[in-house]
């Protein structure tokens, strides 16, 4: 079966790949682009481990048909790092013990980034809502919520 040419912006860089018919964005990112930051969890839309931002909005990459991102901007956790320097959200996750096994962390960080990009000073309930599509089986969520709130107030202090 023929492959389809696909061009999109991956973390600000233009990328061109050939995808199989029916391939999802997560497999295109991991297998073709080599970006291992989005994780495969359930493949059903239940866990949020594969969350990426498409044109700034959180999407589940495992349920996104790869070719639907043609010409669009896809942002993954890989975009948050700046050499050895961590993003304020990553620092906050570290300081608040918001990662244990770490599998949900990429999705959590992207869901949190989508929130803070739009709403730099969220209320606790807004943080809970923002990560409601992301499952964590280790932390019990409280450290994650605290980390996002800390990153938000940290950002405000800097501004």
């Amino acid at each position, binding site marked *: *079966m023929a492959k389809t040419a696909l061009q999109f912006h991956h973390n600000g860089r233009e990328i061109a790949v050939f995808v199989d018919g*029916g391939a999802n964005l997560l497999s295109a990112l991991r297998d073709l682009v080599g970006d291992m930051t989005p994780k495969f969890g359930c493949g059903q839309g239940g866990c949020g481990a594969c969350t990426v931002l498409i044109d700034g909005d959180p999407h589940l990459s495992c349920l996104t*048909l790869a070719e639907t991102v043609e010409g669009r901007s896809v942002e993954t956790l890989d975009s948050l790092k700046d050499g050895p320097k961590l993003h304020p959200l990553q620092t906050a996750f570290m300081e608040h013990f918001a990662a244990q096994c770490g599998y949900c962390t990429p999705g959590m960080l992207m*869901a949190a980034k*989508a929130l803070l990009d739009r709403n730099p000073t969220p209320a606790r309930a807004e943080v809970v809502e923002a990560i409601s*599509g992301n499952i964590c089986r280790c932390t019990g969520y409280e450290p994650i919520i605290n980390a996002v709130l800390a990153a938000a107030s940290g950002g405000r202090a800097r501004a």
Partner: protein
Amino acid sequence: MPLTVKTFASAGDAAHALSAERGARYLAGGTLVMRAVNEGDLSFSTIVRATDKALARLDVSGSRVTLGAGVTYATILAERELAFLHPVARSIGGPAVRNMGTIGGNLFAPAPFGDFTVALLALDAALSVQSGFGGREIALEEFLASRDRSPGALVLSISFQRPVHSDAFRYRKIARIKPKGASVVTLAAHVPTSGGRVTSARIAYGAMAATAIRAKSVERALEGRPLDPLTIAAAVAAAAEGTSPVDDSLASAWYRREVVGVHLRRLLSGPD
């Protein structure tokens, strides 16, 4: 096995392709179809999609609301004129799912999913459907009754009368996980009153049958009566009539039948 993906600029052409090929499935937001793909579903070999902007159009200015089938829950939540549907959209998925899932796709979601359709059924929505043989209007209730037996048509848009007053439309979704979780039972009611009496009551349930269904015995118990404790008690007594819920990991069929009346009482009694 790789699938063939056919992308069309016009919804009409996509509808034609859908009618012409038995093994074709229409992909809108992907939350149902890509899930099936990921699970290795072999019941379809072609994915049909349309990039037609008309599918994402909203007409919310008049008393009759028309929403393109490709409208997402996030779009509903961003539209102030559709505030009465915000609790419905908010009860579905997390933010990512709400950015992806469409109200047209929701019509095809198997129980216990499909909460938006429950609201649309209570609002007596009509669908504009296009197949290879032409376009037609169909009542949502009729569409749901034959949904799983009549593939090959594309839903273009959904329309319904805006509730006359905000208290006339009510919605409740019972889930075990908060703020996000699949439905134990979902209830929607449109109970407009005229001279203190309910007229044209519409009650719809989700997760109480294979598709969203109307609770017609409850509607009959309400019709022409004031929404007082006596009427509500009669409605609650008929709450489980005509339902056929299933056992799943969220609740047993027995439990769903037991609690639907409790939640119906709370829905009809108004804000807690």
